């Protein structure tokens, strides 16, 4: 009956397989984040110049990483959905947008809070912060477009096209913001750069980055699962799943 739903990349298959892996992924994510958090907050040495405010790096940097990587995940999922008409990919793309936007928001807010003790002000037109802000705008554009279409399929296709255009543009935007920043050269202290960090500071950062990647995957899967349930709520297998859960 619902044969058109079960083509390549069947959402049902994804829902059932991811259900098996989910508890493990959740456990690993929780442990990594907890270890990284305690390590970073309490056991990493304080920075000579910035003091303890430097500890914000343990959330700021991983969040920034995932914010950018998340855009690529979204765009690539969108491309797969457009080219191979795979419904699962559309759902992944739709789930990636608010997640990426939230992480971009975290990166921006923690960056601003970090800026206060470091630069004496919450907001500086620094190249990296400005780029992050533009990234937030790109995410918001995709989400706004997604919400303004009444047809689900059209919404997915349109936001896939937009996120692809954004992906092509991100390097250009980043480069131009960098160039703009060096042109104006305001006197600021640079963020601590990862490669020159002391290993004692760097190891917890590494744990946090891996933890954030796991967290990203976890939330992406959770979002996609709820999207699958919502879109296939009329199909028989979803009804079976719901019935099983009640027992």
């Amino acid at each position: 009956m619902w044969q058109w739903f079960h083509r390549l990349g069947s959402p049902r298959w994804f829902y059932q397989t991811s259900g098996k892996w989910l508890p493990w992924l959740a456990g690993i994510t929780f442990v990594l984040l907890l270890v990284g958090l305690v390590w970073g907050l309490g056991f990493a040495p304080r920075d000579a110049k910035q003091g303890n405010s430097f500890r914000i790096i343990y959330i700021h940097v991983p969040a920034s990483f995932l914010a950018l990587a998340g855009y690529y995940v979204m765009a690539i999922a969108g491309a797969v959905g457009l080219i191979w008409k795979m419904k699962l990919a559309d759902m992944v793309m739709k789930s990636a947008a608010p997640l990426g936007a939230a992480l971009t928001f975290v990166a921006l807010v923690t960056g601003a809070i970090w800026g206060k003790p470091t630069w004496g002000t919450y907001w500086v037109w620094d190249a990296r912060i400005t780029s992050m802000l533009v990234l937030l705008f790109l995410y918001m554009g995709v989400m706004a477009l997604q919400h303004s279409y009444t047809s689900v399929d059209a919404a997915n296709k349109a936001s896939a096209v937009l996120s692809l255009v954004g992906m092509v543009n991100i390097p250009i935007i980043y480069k131009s913001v960098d160039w703009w920043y060096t042109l104006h050269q305001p006197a600021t202290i640079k963020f601590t750069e990862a490669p020159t960090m002391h290993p004692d500071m760097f190891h917890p950062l590494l744990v946090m980055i891996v933890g954030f990647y796991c967290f990203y995957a976890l939330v992406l899967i959770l979002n996609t699962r709820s999207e699958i349930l919502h879109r296939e709520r009329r199909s028989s297998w979803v009804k079976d799943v719901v019935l099983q859960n009640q027992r």
Partner: protein
Amino acid sequence: MIFRFDSFQHFLQMDGHGGYVWSAYLIAILVMVWLVAGPLFRQSRVRQTVTRELRRETARHHSAGEAGKE
């Protein structure tokens, strides 16, 4: 590896930077909790609607499985 602070008080204050560090972590954790709770909440809502529909269907047809079959 050693704990870098003398006391819990010191750990909270972080030499005057405590407010910044703790608020940054708090905001990040709140957002992350919301990110996990959101899909779980949505999922349970879908489950509720499906359950309601199933109940309505059973009331109508006396056999819930009928509608799902070929």
